[in-house]
């Protein structure tokens, strides 16, 4: 038994080495997405929506285009229940499959536990809209991509939006904003940013903690009532969100002056609150609904052919489903961009990383992808792994979300120094030397010129 195991291990090691050395050699042209999904447990609503949307888009690309330039997209799921150790187990189980493009856990805890592992294995880790803020600095975190939005730019985006509600950022002076945050590391992460923005724009900020899970908020809302804030920002999680909306209604605070963050913006957050949620506004990076051509194609070509992933077709176009579709678009386009450099074949994780670092989708390209209005644009670089995602705000009318703002650009320039300081501290702690992005980009440009000259 040990001998056979050892033989098998040797064979496996051999295969892996061969695969790493010559990705072109053995495989049929397939690009594989390992999915650490969660369809069971307390966060199943988000998990089924997000991974459903992601799979729907991969299905659409295979059915409509025959894959990406002929490279078929494949995937398989491992259930994590949103638990870190299950996520690690799925990672270890699926990481030896050939042709992995990127990991997309949609879980902060799992993502943190994977940073070391994916960096050693040289495969991208995509944490769309969430994840570690300082991983925005691609010089220190070459394989981590918190695409579109990190917690700091979310905070800045919300304040920009409140500025437009007040009639200009300068009008925020003298206003009072209460931030109701979940009593967890996630909830507390933006405390210094709100404090800093309050100082800059001259508004008063009161940050009030709701202990986990947040199913009792009488005293917090009494405080808010005494405070009489102009706006309340809801930085909630799970059951805390509907309870906040209901308690606000009881204390007489109008829902349209409550603004939710990205983890308080889904149907699951408002439907349980019933009437109390009418008028509630929340931030998002992708608009809801099915009006966008790409969602229509998902409905027609994927669900029409009976291959849809959502069990309930009514959830097509919901917040998490559209986020999944958007995540699919970003992953597929990163693969396509990387293929442009390395050839239309199965790519290695490191080649897809290059694709993500050149993931530049302007408004014209977004429209060509059928996603005009679904999201604005993205511009990822070697140093900026977030990619300047714009945000918009949606209002709940009791049945659906409606966009009520323009695409707002957070104030990235003022956040960058804080992010760089944190990333530099991480690099120092771990003995890493930050990459020289300018040199890498120059080398890329030189390579492109040489190729053009040769042609």
């Amino acid at each position, binding site marked *: 038994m040990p001998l056979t195991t*050892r033989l098998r291990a040797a064979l496996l090691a051999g295969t892996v080495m061969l695969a790493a050395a010559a990705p072109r050699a053995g495989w049929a042209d397939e690009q594989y997405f390992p999915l650490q*999904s969660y369809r069971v447990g307390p966060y199943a609503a988000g998990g*089924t929506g997000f991974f459903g949307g992601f799979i729907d888009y991969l299905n659409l690309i295979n059915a409509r285009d025959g894959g990406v330039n002929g490279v078929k997209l494949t995937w398989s799921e491992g259930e994590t229940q949103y638990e*870190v*150790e299950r996520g690690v187990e799925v990672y*270890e189980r699926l990481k030896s499959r050939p042709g992995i493009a990127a990991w997309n856990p949609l879980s*902060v805890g799992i993502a943190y536990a994977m940073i070391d592992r994916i960096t050693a294995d040289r495969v991208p880790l995509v944490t769309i809209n969430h994840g570690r*803020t300082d991983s925005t600095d691609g010089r220190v975190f070459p394989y981590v991509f918190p695409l579109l939005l990190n917690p700091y730019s979310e905070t800045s985006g919300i304040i920009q939006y409140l500025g437009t509600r007040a009639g200009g950022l300068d009008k925020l002076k003298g206003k009072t904003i209460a931030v109701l945050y979940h009593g*967890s*590391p996630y909830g507390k992460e933006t405390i210094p940013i709100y404090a800093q923005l309050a100082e800059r724009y001259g508004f008063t900020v009161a940050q009030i903690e709701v202990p986990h899970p947040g199913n009792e908020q009488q005293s917090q809302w009494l405080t808010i009532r005494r405070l009489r804030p102009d706006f309340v920002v809801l930085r909630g999680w799970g059951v805390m969100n509907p309870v906040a909306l209901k308690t606000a209604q009881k204390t007489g605070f109008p829902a349209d002056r409550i603004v939710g963050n990205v983890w308080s913006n889904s149907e699951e957050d408002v439907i349980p609150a019933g009437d109390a949620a009418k008028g509630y506004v929340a931030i998002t990076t992708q608009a809801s609904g099915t009006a966008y051509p790409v969602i229509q194609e998902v409905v027609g070509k994927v669900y029409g052919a009976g291959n849809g992933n959502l069990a309930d077709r009514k959830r097509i176009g919901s917040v998490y489903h559209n986020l999944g579709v958007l995540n699919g678009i970003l992953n597929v386009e990163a693969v396509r961009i990387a293929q442009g450099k390395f050839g239309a074949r199965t790519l290695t994780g490191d080649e897809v990383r290059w694709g993500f670092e050149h993931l530049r989708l302007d408004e014209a390209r977004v429209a060509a992808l059928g996603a005009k209005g679904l999201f604005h644009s993205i511009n990822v670089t070697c140093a900026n792994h977030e990619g300047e995602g714009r945000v918009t705000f949606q209002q709940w009318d009791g049945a659906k979300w409606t966009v009520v703002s323009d695409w707002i650009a957070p104030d990235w320039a003022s956040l960058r120094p804080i992010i760089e300081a944190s990333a530099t501290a991480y690099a120092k702690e771990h003995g890493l030397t930050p990459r020289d992005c300018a040199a890498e980009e120059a080398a890329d440009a030189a390579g492109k010129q040489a190729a053009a000259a040769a042609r």
Partner: protein
Amino acid sequence: MDALPRAAPRPHLPAGALGLGALLVLAYGIVPLTGTSYLFEALLTPFLALALAGLGLNLLTGYAGLLSLGSAAFMAVGAYAAFNLSLRLPGLPLPASLLLAGFVAALAGLAAGLPALRLRGFYLAVSTLAVQFFVAWALNRIGWISDDSPSGVITAPRLVVAGLSFDDPRGRYLVSLTVVTLLTLVAWRLVSSPTGRNLVAIRDNETAARLVGVKVARTKLLAFAASSFVIGIAGALWAFAYLRTVEPAGFNLDRSFQILFIVIIGGLGTLRGAFLGAGFIVVLPLLLARLGAALLGDGFDSGTLEMVQRIVLGALIVALLIREPAGLAALLDRAGRRLGRRAA
């Protein structure tokens, strides 16, 4: 705690010495040479860490009969103590920082054990529940503990012992295995010593134990300290060797229950019980998941598969506890006796 099974106070170590030796040869000799990174990273390292936590809780609940729901809190204390020790005392070698982390957890255990001098049974369980919530609150509230990291999540330091790096899957497994082996040996010495017999005496009848001269208060506190020491080191292993990142949410009440179930299903008042229980609770679900995935293929809905596994696992637990309420260790004993009788 009269409902607890009266297992033999002395573990059957000498009788099974041969088997134990074979197990160690397997664990140290054969597994590291032949195992895959999946085996180390996904199965053995978490198995060892939680088995060790189970061992620690068994000292308290199995041997001394004191029910605790705060195991995850002691794991957290151990993990964060080890993190802070290696962060703030950079020259401290890893074994020393693990040992000191164990002592910090033992101090926390002593404090948590004070109510045990007055409370028993479910009332004590409730007071340990308070520890569970207090530690979670403190980790969330006091930024210094997680080095003022904005997200409260810390990254574990590299595993280096005496200049040798153990920072690959095999190395992490070997570090965990060595720590677990040493602590199991210490625990075995403890439970077969007079102090160990005092623990059992308090569990079986506290008044009688007091009458024959057992120092009840001191022994109870010792049980809390020793148990928390072991659980604290298990927490450090969980954080450093397994996840390599620590967030407070990973040490919630669910984890405490998981450790309690490991001990109950494995067998209260036995050292083997923790390992058998950890095998059942940690490894078996993963094997079931892999079996299900292998049988049904990638296309099958992973949520349904998960539900089926839960049903199978639940049925197994019910069946086991009907057949043998004293846990897997007792089941194994009985099987061994039957085999012996047949052979004789």
